[in-house]
Structure formats: structure tokens, C-alpha cells
């Protein structure tokens, strides 16, 4: 296998990896705020693409505006979902909340099926077709968009967490909810904000990928599982870990195809995931629970 081909596999791994990373970030944000895995995260990915297609094709908005509408509307859906379903469960029992998110994902995909039809729908490439050559390997322009948007999201999150009052409040909630409440942080608001953000991140991933893959009402669960695996692999609750987990998972799949077989790529990726968790149950970058106590 030549160096060019190897580089091509690396680029493919980075591309898929950054998609998984964006979805994993959503899992991690909500986990940090609530201690719950949000199984509707994949549906936010679906809605981001679907609502952008709707704004672009059905409302006739220009593409940048349609993308903005798609992401904002999905964020709003995330917020409404939290207010209407998650918050109604007053005791915050994690098991009950997880079941609510599973139900929420079914409701969202059925609604998308009824409103937007059963078939896949396309979205044009952000800046036309074409690709650039990187040492002989091919990098699609849309892939540069995906990588760029992921980088932007990570920088934005870092800024939010480290440089704003809201971000510090969210971090405080993640570390210790009761203590945060005692110092006057509205912990409920922080949960709503994390759902808004998680939905927006998922939607951003869906929006960036749809020009390459089209979207349909049923694309959520597959990507959701991958994002979940990435979040676990990196270490739940830590945004940088989610990105690392996503990129590692994307690379694993790509390398499995290159050197073993595409038939078993998902199986190989999951076996490695299990192996990592066996050695480091808290994930690659996760802090072990004992430290917290």
C-alpha cells in the first residue's frame, strides 16, 4: 500500500471522526449537566440536516441562512424537549430520564417521517463541488468544511467553558450540582442550556454532512450510536475527550478497512472500544470516579 493511499485512509478517518466528535460533544454536554445519556442525540443530527433541507428547498432560503435556521430550530427543539419532557420528571431519576430520551428519539423521527416524507433529501455542497490534493491524496472541499466546523465548535466550547460566566456555571454544575445550587447557580437553567447546545452541535454535524450523504428521517440512530461510542471511548463528561474519542473511532474504522476488512469495520472498532474500556473504564481521557469523591 502506497503512502498516498495511507494518507487517503487518514483523511477519511479524520472526516468521519470529526462527525462522530460533534455528536459525541452533545452526549458529553448533557451527561455533564444531568448525569444522563441522551439517546435522542442522533435525532438532533437528523433534524439539523432535515430542517436545513426544509428551509432551503421548501422555504427557498439561501443556503447559509437555511443552515442557520436548521441549527437554530434544532436547538429550539432540544430546549423544548428538555422543558416539556426532561424537566417534568422532577426527581431527576437517571433511569427514567434515559427512557424519556429513548421515547423522545422515537417521537422525533416519527414526526420527521410524517412531515418530510420517507425518502432521502439532498442539500447542495456549501461551496460547490471539487476537491484539493494533499500530497496526492484527495480532500473534498466539503470535508474541509466539516473539519473546520468541528474545530470552530471545539474552540467555541472552550471559550464558553473557560471565559464566560455561563460556562463556569455549567462546569460548576457538572462538578457538583448541589454545591452549585447553594452558591446561587440556577442548575435547572444549566440543564436547559446544555440541551440547547447539544442539539445545536448535533444539528451542526447533520448540516455539514448532508451535502455529502443526503438526509432522511431514519439517519439518527446509526450516527447516534457512533457518537455515543466516541463519547464513552474518550471519557464521558469532558469535551476534549469527546473530540479525541471521535477522532480515534473514525481512524479505527478507516484503518480496519485499510488493513483488515470493511465487512468487520464496525465490529473491530467496537472490540477496540471494549478493550480500551477494560484497561481504562473511565475512557482514554476520563477522570476516574474515585478522584471526584
Amino acid at each position: 500500500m502506497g503512502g498516498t493511499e495511507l494518507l487517503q485512509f487518514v483523511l477519511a478517518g479524520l472526516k468521519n471522526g470529526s462527525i462522530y466528535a460533534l455528536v459525541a460533544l452533545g452526549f458529553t454536554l448533557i451527561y455533564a449537566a444531568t448525569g444522563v445519556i441522551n439517546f435522542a442525540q442522533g435525532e438532533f443530527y437528523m433534524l439539523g440536516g432535515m430542517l436545513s433541507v426544509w428551509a432551503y428547498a421548501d422555504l427557498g432560503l439561501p443556503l447559509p441562512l437555511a443552515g442557520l435556521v436548521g441549527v437554530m430550530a434544532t436547538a429550539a427543539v432540544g430546549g423544548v424537549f428538555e422543558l416539556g419532557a426532561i424537566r417534568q420528571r422532577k426527581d431527576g431519576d437517571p433511569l427514567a430520564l434515559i427512557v424519556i430520551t429513548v421515547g423522545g428519539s422515537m417521537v422525533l423521527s416519527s414526526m420527521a417521517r410524517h412531515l418530510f416524507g420517507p425518502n432521502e433529501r439532498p442539500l447542495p455542497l456549501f461551496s460547490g463541488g471539487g476537491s484539493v490534493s494533499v500530497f496526492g491524496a484527495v480532500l473534498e472541499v466539503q470535508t474541509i468544511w466539516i473539519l473546520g466546523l468541528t474545530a470552530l465548535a471545539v474552540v467555541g466550547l472552550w471559550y464558553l467553558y473557560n471565559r464566560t460566566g455561563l460556562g463556569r456555571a455549567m462546569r460548576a454544575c457538572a462538578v457538583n450540582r448541589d454545591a452549585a445550587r447553594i452558591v446561587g447557580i440556577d442548575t435547572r437553567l444549566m440543564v436547559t442550556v446544555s440541551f440547547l447546545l447539544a442539539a445545536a452541535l448535533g444539528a451542526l454535524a447533520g448540516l455539514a454532512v448532508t451535502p455529502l450523504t443526503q438526509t432522511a428521517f431514519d439517519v439518527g440512530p446509526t450516527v447516534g450510536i457512533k457518537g455515543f461510542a466516541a463519547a464513552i471511548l474518550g471519557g464521558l463528561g469532558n469535551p476534549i475527550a469527546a473530540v479525541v474519542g471521535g477522532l480515534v473511532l473514525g481512524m479505527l474504522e478507516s484503518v480496519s478497512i485499510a488493513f483488515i476488512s470493511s465487512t468487520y469495520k464496525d465490529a473491530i472498532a467496537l472490540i477496540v472500544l471494549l478493550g480500551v474500556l477494560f484497561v481504562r473504564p473511565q475512557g482514554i481521557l476520563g477522570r476516574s470516579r474515585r478522584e471526584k469523591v
Partner: protein
Amino acid sequence: MRRVMLGVLLTGALFAMSLGGCAGEPDEGGEAAGDTYRIGAVLSLSGPQAGLGEPERRAIEMEVERINEEGGVHGRPVEVLFEDDATDEAKAVTAASRLIEQEGVIALIAASGTGQTMAVRQEVERAGIPQMSLAGGSVVTAQFSEWVFQTPWPNRIVVPFTLGYLRDSGVTRLGLLIDSGAYGKDGYDVIMAEVDRFGIEIVADEQFNRGDTDMTPQITKIRAAGPDALLMWAAGAEAATVLKNNAALGGDSPLSVYGGPGNGRIELIQGAGDAAEGFTFSAGKILVPEAYGVGSDEYEVTTSFIDRFTERFGVGPDIFAGHAYDGIYLIVDAMKRLPEGFTPEDLRDEIERTDGFIGAGGTFTFGPTDHNGLSEDDLTMYRIENGEWVLVGQAR
């Protein structure tokens, strides 16, 4: 209080949406009228195969109305009872047994997918009524049941036809890219069993899963093996991604990509755009009825169906609508040939005696060991040029 109000509002909104979505559905069930012929239809109206089930339901609904306007069968109306299997085998079985036990249907159109089709077989055999499958898996008629008929072109006919075309195009080294789902697996098994006969060598053999967002690693690996062409066997939305990835990787020299009937969908052209140009695939003649020869009986039947469907629904029928058209008419046609008071077993025997029935998918001639009734003559090759299907004719 505000929170309660919000909950109520949200529930109300969800309810309204689900109602809105259901408003167009046909009236299911209905009162048992002693003098109607009842046929059951188990289709995938939701779930991953909803894109198949929906056009199938439309075609059946439209044609049953037409049959009844023309006087039904023996002066009695035909009623089709629809059930949604949600692309789920267990739900398909429940739906089939409900239609058989409670509604007393005399025949069953089932199902959209190969998995569901196989799952309801036990119900059909127990009840002793004919089943008309709209699924393309070879297994449907290869695992023979005297009760089960199949309207689409199965892979065991389409694959040799496609390989023959590849051979005649000078392809000797072939790369495979297969959807890991039931349809792709079924095609893959036939490809591997037949390929030697055509003097073609498989130099690369890769798969992708439903929902995969990027196939560049697979195509990179296939390109490295140096094939003359790439054969893709897939029915889902991922086919467009394959074409796009291949175009991007290829630059000035992309691999020529070939495919099968699962790619005869307008969504593929819309999704892949310029990357779809030059893509060549085998399918029945319904996509461009001129393939039957203008003025031929097949041409008249197919164009009449296409015109009526397009007028009513605002979109043209796809191949799945065509399979449903053939399914309902193969049953009704056999019913008309029988005298009044026939049993489901008589109906099965009569469907099996179908000889030269002209449908949208081709000319059907069933026999005691052939419950698909189609041949390679019912297939043709298409190429996508300027965003449209263009005939490239028979290979042999």
C-alpha cells in the same frame, strides 16, 4: 402551573401533527360487506423501508379504485385492507395473521421487504391463501413455496444480466462494493456464484453498512486493486454517497460504476448530482417505457399506469409502485378468470396458470416451479446522462 400548560400544549401539538400525518391514510378495516372480495396488503408504511411501502400503497389504492369503477370482479367490488409492518418482521407476522384470521382475506400482498416477506410465509401456508411478494430478494422464490409469488426481478435474474453486460463492455477485473443489508447480501451471493461463468475476476470485495457517511476508504482500497470497473449492489441512500466519493477520489479518472434495480430511484440522481453522470445500472423497463418499443402492448400498459399515477399524485411511479401494480393485477386477473365462489386454493392454482400477463415490470408467465415469471428479456440497461435515465440497450 406554567410547566403543566407547556406540557399540555406540547402534547396537543404532537397529537395534531400525528393527526395531520394520518389524514391522507386510507380508511382501514371497514365494515365487512358480504359481497366484497377482500385482499390484504402488509406494507412498510413506516420504518426504514417506508420509501418502498408508500408508493406501493398508492399504486394499489389507485388501481383498486379503477378496477371497481370498471365493475369489480363478477360484479362485486374488490377491497384491499392495508396494514403497516413498520419494516419489522414480527409486526408483519401480526399484521398478516390479523388480516387472515379476523378479516378473512382471500389473498395477501406481502411484503415490501425480503425479511418481512419470508416472515409471513408460515401464516400464509397455514391459512392456505396465495401470497404476492413485492420484495426482490432471490430467496423469496428460490426457497420455493407453492403459495408464494414474487413480482420484482430477483437478483438471480438481474445479476447474470448485469454481469453479461459488464463482460460485453470488456470488463474482466471487477471491484465490488456491497450494502451489508439483506438486499446487498442476496445480490452478493448470486454475484459470487455466477461471476466465473462470465470470465470476470473479482479483484476487490468491500462492504458498507446502512447509515455510513463516507465510503472513501473502501473505494481507495478498491482502486488500489486496479479493477476495470466498480459494481455496487445497494438499494439505499448510500448509493449516492458512493458515487460522490468515487467522483471525488477519481479526479480525472474515476472508476466506471455499475449497479442494479435498487439504484433506479430519482433520489439517487438528486442526491449524487454531477457524480451520477455516466452511472450505468440494470433495471426493468418501467423507468423508460420506450424500452418496450413504442406502440407495443407493454408500452401501452406501462405508459397508461405512469400517466394516471403522475396525474393523481404529482410524481411519477418508481419501480416499487410498478411492482405493486403487477401484484394487485396478477391477483385480480386470476380472480376474473375463475367462476364465482372460488376458494383461495383455486385462486392460487389460477395465479400459477398466469401466462403472458403484461404488467409494468414485464411479461409474467408463472409455472409450477417458477413463481416469479420474469426473464432477462424484461430487463434493460440505463445510464444517467444530464440528470436523466437514458437507455443503453440490451447487452446481448
